[in-house]
């Protein structure tokens, strides 16, 4: 099958989103299903088909999401309605929209400079809760409360910790 000439291809736009909490590992397919569900539930099947969303890439804490040109606004609104993906609480913050993936990669490279602060899991205390630090970016610290199931995640700053 030959590919269509560029003039006959449909025009697309690429939306760069930042995935929070930083450091979470997401499967591309799972994120696609979350985006599709958000678009379909908000705009319906017909408009959802016209938006034609697809997750092109996940690189670190960023994802590139494709849509048909002219439907970026609809996609951005639907993206702000995503609250979880494969059982994990997430939020997608729209960073930029572009006609090429390349320009979004340049944007990503600029933003990644301040985003690479991994820490060793150390114990700390917050308001009487014994916690383990799981992510540290600048002043921001994410900790997980130590307990039977280790599931409660607190979003704090360095000033909030007791030791």
């Amino acid at each position, binding site marked *: 099958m030959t590919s269509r000439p560029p003039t006959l291809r449909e025009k697309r736009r690429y939306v760069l989103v930042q995935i929070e*909490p930083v450091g979470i590992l997401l499967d591309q397919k799972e994120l696609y299903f979350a985006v599709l569900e958000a678009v379909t539930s908000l705009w319906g099947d017909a408009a959802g088909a016209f938006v034609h969303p697809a997750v092109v890439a996940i690189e670190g804490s960023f994802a590139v999401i494709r849509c048909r040109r002219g439907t970026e*606004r609809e996609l951005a609104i639907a993206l702000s309605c995503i*609250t979880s993906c494969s059982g994990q609480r997430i939020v997608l*913050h*729209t960073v930029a929209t572009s006609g090429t993936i390349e320009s979004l990669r340049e944007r990503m490279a600029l933003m990644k400079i301040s985003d690479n602060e991994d820490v060793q899991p150390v114990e700390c205390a917050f*308001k009487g809760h014994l916690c383990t630090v799981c992510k540290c970016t600048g002043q921001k610290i994410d900790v997980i409360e130590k307990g039977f199931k280790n599931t409660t*995640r*607190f979003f704090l700053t360095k000033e909030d910790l007791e030791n």
Partner: protein
Amino acid sequence: MNFTDACVFPYPTGDSSIRRMAIEACDLGFDSIVAINSTNCKYAGISVINGVFLNDTPVQDIISKVKRAKVTDNLIFVKTRDNRFNRAVIGIRGVHILYGLHLTDGYAFDHVVAKMAADSGIAIDLNLSPLINERGQSRQHVLNRYIDVVNLYRRFEFPIVLSTHAHSVLELRSVRDFSALATLFGFDIQDVEKALGNIGRIKSLESAVREIK
């Protein structure tokens, strides 16, 4: 205070500390937030305004609670109920914001209440979290209520504030997301900017010197 998220719930109600919420709000384009059961302070260049929620209490109790809360320069939120309750609450001096309109029926906020809110300068809080978290019929119900409120807003021009009611930094949304979500119920960019700045206006009106004739 140009852009304010009108309601967030820091720790212990939520899972994020007030400092972290302030930093995240700053990153998302806000310059102030209203934190429920917190203290008036400033973190990372973000003004944190303390808010007090008064819900499910009779009007008499609200009057006494408002008197107590007014002393400490708090923003006072009262949960809307039926039409009669809303009319009574709007008449109370010291109440700043009515919230929870999407949980009431269509008659709770009619043209009379809208006119009273415009006259007394009491703002109506439009909570964006049901638009984000709900799906299907319940989200449609919320959108219908908000469209109805916006129609009354166009006629009477009472103040509207927008909020996320975020219990976590993961529930905060950017100014861009606010304007995008607000288009769902008929707000344009100017309306959103005005709504995000209304907390600042309420605070400045409260502290302004008034001439008594």
